[in-house]
């Protein structure tokens, strides 16, 4: 798995993980999110469009990253999850924790939530 991170001129940070978010990759991903949190961004969007598999350790990494960003006064949105990731988020009730948006633009504009 690799992760692309970019910062918009307006200050939002977009994180784009690719591949499988499982026990072999999620530790590195969690570290990446915690590093991002240290810069105290107001808004981070994790774009899940290219994540084809996520397991409980991947979910744990997302929760851990979100908490770190929140503690620094920011927020974390998820965007464009594939079916497997969306199922995993719903089964674990994490769809009530993360704001989840169908597209990256929605996540940046904070409209059209996927989650209830």
């Amino acid at each position, binding site marked *: 798995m690799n992760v692309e991170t970019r910062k918009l001129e307006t200050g939002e940070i977009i994180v784009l993980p690719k591949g499988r978010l499982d026990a072999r990759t999620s530790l590195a991903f969690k570290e990446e999110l915690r590093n991002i949190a240290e810069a105290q961004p107001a808004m981070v969007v994790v774009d899940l469009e290219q994540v084809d598999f996520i397991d409980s350790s991947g979910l744990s990494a997302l929760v851990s990253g979100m908490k770190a960003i929140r503690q620094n006064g920011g927020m974390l949105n998820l965007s464009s999850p594939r079916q497997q990731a969306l199922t995993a988020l719903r089964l674990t009730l994490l769809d*009530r924790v993360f704001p989840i948006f169908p597209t990256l633009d929605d996540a940046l504009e904070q409209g059209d939530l996927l989650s209830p």
Partner: protein
Amino acid sequence: MINTQDDAGVSLSHLWRTLTGGGLVFLSQSEEPHDRLEQRKLPGQVRRAYESGQTMHGSVHDGALWWVVHEAESEASRLSCIAWSSVEGPWGELLTSWTELLSRIAARTQEADELTKALVSSWDRLTLLYELMQIAGETEDLSLMLESVVRLLAQVATARDVFLVLREKETSINVTASGDPLPQPEVLFESAVLTQRPVTLAELHRALREANSPLARMKDLLVAGILTEEGHVGILGLLDPLENNFDANDVQLVASVAEQVSALIQAEKARARRAEQTLLEHELAIAAEIQSSLLPDRLPELAGLELAVMLEPARQVGGDFYDVTRTADGDHLLMLADVSGKGSPAALLTALLHTAFHAEAAHSDDPAVLLSNVNELLYHDLDKAGTFITAFVVKFNLPRQEFVYASAGHVDAAYWQHDRQAVFFLPATGLPLGIEKRGEYRARSAEIAEGNALWVYSDGITEARNERGTLVGGSGLADLVDAVYSAPVQRQIDCLRRYLHIFTGGKAPEDDMAAVIVRAVRREDQACHAIPFVLPATLESIYDFVEQMRLGFPGRSAGNLDLPQSVLDDVSLAFSEVASNQVEHAYADGDGVILGRFEANPMRVEVHLFDQGLPFDPDEVGLPLIDAEDPPERGYGLRLAFGLLDVCEVERLHGRKNHWQLVKKISEKMEP
């Protein structure tokens, strides 16, 4: 030798005669002048001056001028010059400088001589050490080697005799250059043990006298101990009837030769050990050949039954053995036996057992009668060899759908009864073969119903232990049977090997391990793809297995396993979460094994996982309530598994193992 001094002396006296018409001699210390003065009588005063070391400058005696010059510098070899002449002149200075010159040349010559001597001696010794090293390659006989050592040392050392005494366990070796054995070597042994360096006569004299040893009459003696890994094994030394014959060089020589000899002895012992080992290996290879030639070429094909075997000797040849034959009325008989002992004796007894088994099978159709007869045949040989054999014999009575078995002191066999979903142990029905001359055995039977299986094995399997010393035991074996029973028997055997390998941490087996599995085929199982698994309880091994599962076990499933990918994804994710939970919670305190089976048919996928770890406590690790403001960072795994599956249940069995059942139904809507 270098003759510079003499040559120079001759040249100078020739020159003197030409110059003065007189004569000249150079004399070294205490040399008698008369011997060298040609036709000239030495005047008394000149003689006295020469002898007292006084100088004489051109004094007239007996009608000639006389000079006596002594070289002053060198103490050791003072050179003097006596000269006469009929012609007056300033000859004194000339003679002084000539004498000095000649004296220097002389000193150099002597130095060179000594150097040469030392060089020759050290060259000899070096050659000796080299030749000593060559000895090892010349012969394998230790006493011949030692004789060569003594002979070589006698060539180099300035000694009347050289001796070498070795104290072996059975015989001792006592070699000398003279051929006469060294008398009372024990006295020297004791002294040599006390010190690490060569011992001289002065240190030994008292001990030799007290022991009344003839060696006490020797005027000089040097002895060094020969030290090997086994301690002081011998002595080496020099003898001489001259006092103070041996110097520091000899001490050094004896010490280094003693060292060489100990290296020779050690090399020889190592070679002997290797040769013995090779012989043993050769013998074992023959025994292995005998034994493997006795094993059946193939297992019988029995309608409705499948058979598989494993045999893993702990060393090259073990006592575990299996055999098949037929009774008088045509039923198949199978035997698994454990001959007590290893190597060729075990192989020979195995051959006897093989012969007796086949001979007796032709006369009896009852495993109990057969064992009793085999016992009677082998009793004498087993008793003589002080050993015994345990054996389990089973007859497959297909028309009556039963296994008939008898066991001569063999470890309990395991019987899987499918309708009760449980393992029952079948204990011995008599004593091992070779214990009593008239052994009594009972025959028992068990039903061959679909799905039932019989595991006959040797105690090497149940007594295999892990690093903490825990045995596999009957319970470990029963757990394995319970986990993998639905798979084809060859896969079950593979699982047994894997289980033993993981359980023992990959150690080489301490005892032979043999097993036979016989199973009555179940039609339902044939329609279902059963993949049994045995995994070390590590996350890595689980992820590797999950990857195989997600891909539908490429290359492993017989036939087509056309499962919808979404089902494989859900089941493999749920499996991964449950198995990770087993690693992290059930085996929180150490290593372990996760075993079970994956079964699939067109209607559903069912996975059973077992662990022998701590009980699962749903309250402790269970499903956390999610507080949206402060969600937990862990604990989503089982929630995922529960959500993805139709059934995800855990139960504690027999107070020692956890059983997880994972079921995913396949609906018709799902695309393959």
